[in-house]
């Protein structure tokens, strides 16, 4: 027996913790219905972000949704935040169950 799954897109955004409220508001406005936020740390072109204190803290926001919404959200984020903030965002195909949820 195989599990019946459907394809959706996972949008993952890793960025500065200071942007959390602003980004979540944007997601709501763009029609995203749910998301998961976790604390993150790492290193990139803007140096080590080790979360030792607020200014150096990162977050990781994950959204699973339809491909079209994921793409338009990523485009919005790229246009608005890429230039000035430490940010990595990418899309990934995922298989989900309970398709009505996403």
């Amino acid at each position, binding site marked *: 027996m195989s599990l019946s799954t459907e394809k959706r897109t996972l949008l993952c955004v890793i960025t500065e913790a200071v942007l959390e409220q602003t980004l979540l508001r944007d997601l709501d406005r763009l029609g995203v219905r749910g998301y998961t936020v976790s604390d993150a740390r790492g290193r990139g072109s803007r140096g080590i972000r080790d979360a*030792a*204190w607020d*200014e*150096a803290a990162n977050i990781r926001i994950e959204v699973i949704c339809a491909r079209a919404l994921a793409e338009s959200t990523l485009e919005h984020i790229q246009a608005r935040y890429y*230039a000035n*903030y430490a940010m990595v965002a990418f899309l990934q195909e995922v298989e989900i169950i309970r398709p009505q949820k996403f």
Partner: protein
Amino acid sequence: MIDIVVLFFLFGLVAGLARSELKLPAALYDSLSVFLLLAIGLKGGQGLATAELGPLLPQLGAVILLGILQTLIAFGLLRSIVKLGRADAASTAAHYGSVSVATFAVGVNWLMTRSIEFEPQMAIFLAVMEIPAIMVGIVLARGIGRDTDWGLLAHEAFLGKGVTLLLGGMIIGWIAGPEGLAPIKGLFFDLFKGALALFLLEMGLIVSHQAGELRKRGFVIIAFGLLMPLLSALLGLACGLALDLSIGGLTLLATLAASASYIAVPAAMRLAVPEANPALSLSFVLGVTFPFNILAGIPFYHWLALQLTGNPS
């Protein structure tokens, strides 16, 4: 004799510079800052419970003007002498126009250690002076109107963690008065120095991370980071004299004026002026001004206060 809490700062600084493995949990830093803000608020509120509130309003107006003036002066100097771009100059100026709770706490501790009294409203000054510089900095960076979400920023500025905790603590202290506060005195007042010492250990580690940025730009950062607090302290002393503050009050107002924000303002500027480089502003504030204030500034401002009031001891 150097204050014991400052030794903890130096310890963190040296450990960080030596690339020690030492790392305090981020949750501890957060908890300690909540503790310090509440303790300062409670202490101020307790004092206000027995003080006249009438003269307070004009005093608040005066310290708001002080914060605005400092921001404008810092912006002018950063544009003309340090030659920063508009966004970076405005953002850094806002840091200098605002205040640092940690510096204030070290100042309070310095005065308490020497049994020097100061006015209870200093805690209100601390809360009030945090905000105007943020607004002025944003206006300097992008003018009034146009794509600035003032609602969001006002929320960030007035209901940020710092101001909320300070005002909350103050209101509790004011309602409870010295007697009502007695049951929690052990935690918030007696442990203040120990908590401050731990907090400064973490500050030492944070400051040590600024070394790289300092090496990159070197002299200008050090020069501005030292001169701006001295200039601000003089403005603070002048304001304090006009308000007829005590020696302790003068020292603390000079310390507040000389201090530069590294929590509330960076967060607000990051949102409102994203093109400004946050690492640059923090290298001024944390790399130079904060260590200068707690190591040499506070005793010097006290000495200046004594000279200005004509009772050198």
